[in-house]
């Protein structure tokens, strides 16, 4: 038996795969003060549904895969460790100056961001390496010992060491590490060349500092989780999700906790890829995860999970850079809780502000006065006030009507339903905009793609989004409301190794490049033999970061080979680069040499084989729904829409819009003209 638990901002989702390969889905409220409590509660509700005890259930567990926003939250709320930043002498302001850049040039209300580590905790290490790896100034150990004394005095809880050019010659960082280990016992530290050997000092320093600052907290969290799961009866292997869309052993993640940051949304594309293959066989899948506050979108092309070389915590230029590639998920402030408002010029906006879980939309009746997307859907009759989250909460339509009329209807001179319809349409446009940014703006036509709608609020307007984009179809998986946890169940164990080695096509250094690839390959092999032992299937993939001469930004290129045997191999790699460059940027430059900068190898170990199972219809969710309901659709007005229960539809059974398909976790609105059919994998496949 396998458990996949995703601790989100509002809900903790559990997907359980039983010994017969069948799936079970449960949700429990997240408990921010002690997230493990929420996890145990979700397991408990599973035990109740399966008529067993928590202990017996956990005792059957072989794998426990866990995703958490714990690290991300700690950063956002300032709950990380008191961390010192050790930098090269003469360069104390790397974290202050960052890489420059700004958005909204005329906005002088947003203050300049503070450095991730305060200047008061930044120390200059007397040393300097050069770009060629030569020692320009030797490491002054007495100077380092002096710094360590100050760290003791200040009771620093973690240390980040990022020295210039440590990627080319790590001797000084290693020296500092040795002194820290010896003289600052018990205080965890991170060395930049070990964690993230990349070019560009700000990015490397930023990852090093973020990582170090999470070490005390994540060690405690992971240690605590391991202990409490064990105490509750679990004797299997604990794996944690990473922002790269894979899993790592919990102990290893505690050593490099930065990989946990942003791991939440990284799983949706993995699940999305699965359902696009199972239900649509489309080459391109747009995977959308609609929560209460954010709308996360990603693009899976030809089965590849998209990676982004740049990941920011918070807004670009205003937040902190992670410095690692991560699954490329674009998040915008749009979701069920997005607030609708009209500006002074008379333009309607939806979001990016959100009513959140507290006070929530006006219709929650918990003091939220401003109209949201959820309120609009309720007013339009798309949501059943008595069957929200399977009836877990009763909504108040009168509050929604009041808010929409006051804030949108009156200022724009629209009737209640017109106003609600406009909110829905604009929210749809915002979401379409996010998708366009990852499709059209990258030169990818969404018209050939299939949209995968995940998240609790996906059903409200995914049909409209897919239609607006001209998608081939829309898939709402039966586990869609816990898409990330489902993705976690499918993810691979992985390790990612990087190395810097510079060479150019016209004087290609075969020896150097091959030695680099060999070392990376060896590390992958060691991983596969170690943590990857017992995997169903293992593979190593090689990548090179390449660019035209004088360019600065590299393109990540999958290498078809693991060794350069002859000039032909160089030419083949170069041709592949030209092709990707043209695909992304509309031109190629055959007259220019190509530079290879960074090399990367990824070891992937598959943890499961066989089909991904079907969701079991739990007895406790049985209910009767009305057959029809009045619902408003733009262009049609009020119609009598059919209502069906998601889990009672049989494979191949179809339903034409206007219709509403309800499940205990979500509501799917089928617009007039659209047609929903249950697939063999249990999803709804909707054609437009």
């Amino acid at each position, binding site marked *: 038996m396998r458990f996949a638990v995703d601790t989100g901002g509002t809900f903790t989702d559990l997907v359980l795969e039983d010994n017969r390969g069948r799936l079970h889905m449960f949700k429990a409220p997240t408990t921010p003060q002690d997230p493990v409590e929420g996890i145990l509660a979700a397991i408990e509700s599973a035990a109740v549904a399966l008529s067993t005890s928590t202990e017996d259930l956990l005792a059957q567990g072989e794998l426990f895969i866990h995703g958490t926003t714990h690290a991300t939250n700690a950063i956002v709320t300032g709950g990380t460790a008191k961390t010192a930043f050790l930098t090269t002498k003469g360069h104390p302001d790397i974290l202050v100056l960052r890489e420059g850049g700004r958005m909204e*040039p005329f906005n*002088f209300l947003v203050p300049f961001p503070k450095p991730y580590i305060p200047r008061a905790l930044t120390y200059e290490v007397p040393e300097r390496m050069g770009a060629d790896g030569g020692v320009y100034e030797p490491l002054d150990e007495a100077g380092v010992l002096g710094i360590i004394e100050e760290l003791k005095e200040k009771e620093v809880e973690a240390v980040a060491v990022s020295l210039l050019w440590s990627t080319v010659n790590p001797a000084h960082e290693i020296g500092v590490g040795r002194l820290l280990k010896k003289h600052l016992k018990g205080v965890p530290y991170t060395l930049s060349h070990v964690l993230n050997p990349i070019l560009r000092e700000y990015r490397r320093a930023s990852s090093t500092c973020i990582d170090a600052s999470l070490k005390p907290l994540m060690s405690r969290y992971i240690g605590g989780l391991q202990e409490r799961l064990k105490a509750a009866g679990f004797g299997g292997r604990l794996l944690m999700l990473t922002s790269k869309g894979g899993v790592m052993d919990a102990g290893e993640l505690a050593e490099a906790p930065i990989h946990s940051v942003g791991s939440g949304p990284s799983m949706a594309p993995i699940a999305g890829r699965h359902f696009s293959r199972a239900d649509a066989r489309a080459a391109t899948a747009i995977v959308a995860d609609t929560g209460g506050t954010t709308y996360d979108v990603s693009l899976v092309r030809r089965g590849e999970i998209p990676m982004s070389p740049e990941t920011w915590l918070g807004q670009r230029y205003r937040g902190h850079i992670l410095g690692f590639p991560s699954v490329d998920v674009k998040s915008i402030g749009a979701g069920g809780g997005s607030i609708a408002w009209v500006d002074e010029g008379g333009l309607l906006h939806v979001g990016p502000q959100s009513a959140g879980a507290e006070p929530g939309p006006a219709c929650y009746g918990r003091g939220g006065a401003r109209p949201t997307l959820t309120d609009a859907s309720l007013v339009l009759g798309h949501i059943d006030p008595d069957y929200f989250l399977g009836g877990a909460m009763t909504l108040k339509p009168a509050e929604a009507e009041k808010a929409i009329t006051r804030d949108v209807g009156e200022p724009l001179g629209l009737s209640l339903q017109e106003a609600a319809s406009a909110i829905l349409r604009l929210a749809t446009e915002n979401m379409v905009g996010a998708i366009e940014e990852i499709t059209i703006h990258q030169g990818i036509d969404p018209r050939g793609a299939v949209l995968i709608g995940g998240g609790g609020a996906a059903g409200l307007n995914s049909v409209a989004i897919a239609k607006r984009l001209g998608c081939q179809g829309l898939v709402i998986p039966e586990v869609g409301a816990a898409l990330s946890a489902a993705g976690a169940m499918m993810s691979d164990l992985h390790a990612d190794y990087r190395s810097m080695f510079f060479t150019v096509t016209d004087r290609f250094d075969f020896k150097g490049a091959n030695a680099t690839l060999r070392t990376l390959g060896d590390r992958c092999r060691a991983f596969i033999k170690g943590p990857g032992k017992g995997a169903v299937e293992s593979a190593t993939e090689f990548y090179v970061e390449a660019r035209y001469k004088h360019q600065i930004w590299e393109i990540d290129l999958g290498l078809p080979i693991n060794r350069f045997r002859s000039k032909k191999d160089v030419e083949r790699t170069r041709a592949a680069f030209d092709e990707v460059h043209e695909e992304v940027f509309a031109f190629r430059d055959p007259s220019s040499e190509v530079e290879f900068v960074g090399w990367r190898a990824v070891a992937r170990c598959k943890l499961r084989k066989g089909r991904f199972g079907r969701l079991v219809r739990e007895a406790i969710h049985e209910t009767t729904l009305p057959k029809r309901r009045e619902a408003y659709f733009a262009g049609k007005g009020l119609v009598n829409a059919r209502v069906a229960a998601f889990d009672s539809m049989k494979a191949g059974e179809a339903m034409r819009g206007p219709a509403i398909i309800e499940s205990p976790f979500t509501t799917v609105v089928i617009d007039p003209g659209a047609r929903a059919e249950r697939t063999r994998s249990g999803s709804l496949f909707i054609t437009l």
Partner: protein
Amino acid sequence: MARAKTRRAKQKTKLDPITLAVLHKRFDAVTTKMANTLLRTGRSGVLNLARDFSTSVVTRECELLTGAESLPIHHLSGADLMARSMMDLHPNLKRGDAYLHNSPYHGCSHPADHTILVPVIDKRGEHQFTVWVKAHQADCGCSQPTTYMGHARDVYEEGALIFPPTKVQENYEDNEDFINFCRMRIRVPEQWYGDYLAMIGAARIGEREVLAMGDEYGWETLHDFSKEWFDYSEKLMISAIRKLLTGEATTHSTHDPVPGTPEEGIPITVHVRIDNKKAAIEVDLRDNPDAMPCGLNLSEACARTGAMIGVFNSIDDIVPTNAGSFRRINVLIRDGSVAGGGKHPTSMSVATTNLADRVTSPVQRAFSKIQDGIGLAECGPIFPASMGVISGFDPRNNNEPFVNHLFLMVTGGAGAGKTDAWLTILHAGNAGMCFVDSIELDELHFPIYIKTRRLMPDTEGAGRTIGAPSGYCEYGPVGGGDLEVVYVSDGAINASKGTLGGLNGAACKNFLMRADGTLENLPACADIILKPGENVASYCTGGGGYGPPHERPVEKVREDVEEKWITRERAWKVYGVAVDDAGQVDMARTKRRRKRLGGG
């Protein structure tokens, strides 16, 4: 204004508010996509490291529609002038054409800003929109290895190749004569050509996007959108101006002397008038000296834009910057003046930065004088040697030639009405949009060694809200070769001014550091050759403070001390805050000191 009103009255709203919002986002996305292409594919550091470029869409009537994420100085005014001159000189625009424009005498900002204009032509051969990409070149053929010829007497001494709108592509094919010509006259031609390809690629992507929008929505809908979007923007502008007080102010700012200017430098005077009732803002630049025999003269585009940046920096930032909101701003320029009235062959080599900032800064300061809490103090003037153009031959790399504009250390942000400075504003016209160089990337790509880059304590523009501190930077050649450094530095004599009792920002200082460590003062405008072992030591300017320093919140001053931005001595003397050995504030002493500083 009357014209705008009648036009609006006649026109009926055709587009629903949702389509309006959607099309606005689509047009913005066109420019973002062009920008992304250029950043990722450009070859010179000034493009791919510093992001010194802009992208924009202009209507068929040559009105600026959008320039999302562009550098303000590149596009507010000038987009219109450039598109107009393309149409005047080339009345028969065809699909597949592309034009290079860098002539400040035809609406471009300055000759280093190569601009590729692509007319978007529909299936029937009609011109519907124009997209353009403007990018600061690493070299533009000047007589010295820099794009900033501050001391050039005229365009001939400047030596930059000047292209009034020139057809460089027909039927999507390069004009090879043009390419060959540039290869002979622009330094490091492969780098230039790579940048040219990147610019063409970006412009073509913009063209493709707008054509697709035309197919999807129909051209008339897009033109209706433009009209309505302009009206909507004007409405927001009116509402923003109505929030300001009616008033006027005259402010001055002086550029340091360089060869070709009077000894006292270039004094700039601006008169700003806000008319709350008419919802109009006027910036009068007529009261300024005649054009001078140097490279600092402002092009018309930069003079207008410089003034407009000062305005937009001071009003509600939700107002879109386009031809609609511009209807409410009137910039007055005198023919023949240094501030935008110069004619060919006056050199405008450095028009986007030095003197343009000397227009923007007093405009935003004038707003603060009309109303406390609005506008900003002065931003730091540029270019110190830490932002010089470096060139030479790379001994580590077969002595290959290199030339590039460094963006190593510039701060310059001004204290604003409501917030502290944006530290890395670079200069007023840039608004902090450019990137700051990575030490490692610079050292990898060029034979230089950057020993130090740090921000200096006690150099902030003190105030209620503070201006950016000065930054220090020290670099020189490695590998055994020489390093040529060229820069045009303002702000050594005339530092950025504070406002409403805020103190001035730090002045800039540039030194040549000999191998034995001795320092020699460098002039404002310099072309020096560093020998191995020698370094440039450069302090950039800071920004001015806003409001009296003793009104800065005590807790912020305490934090400034804790974070080592200022010393305890400065906290006491300038801000009137007593911070003890443990870093805690002595409130009683602070109150007494602040009372005295406030004159009470």
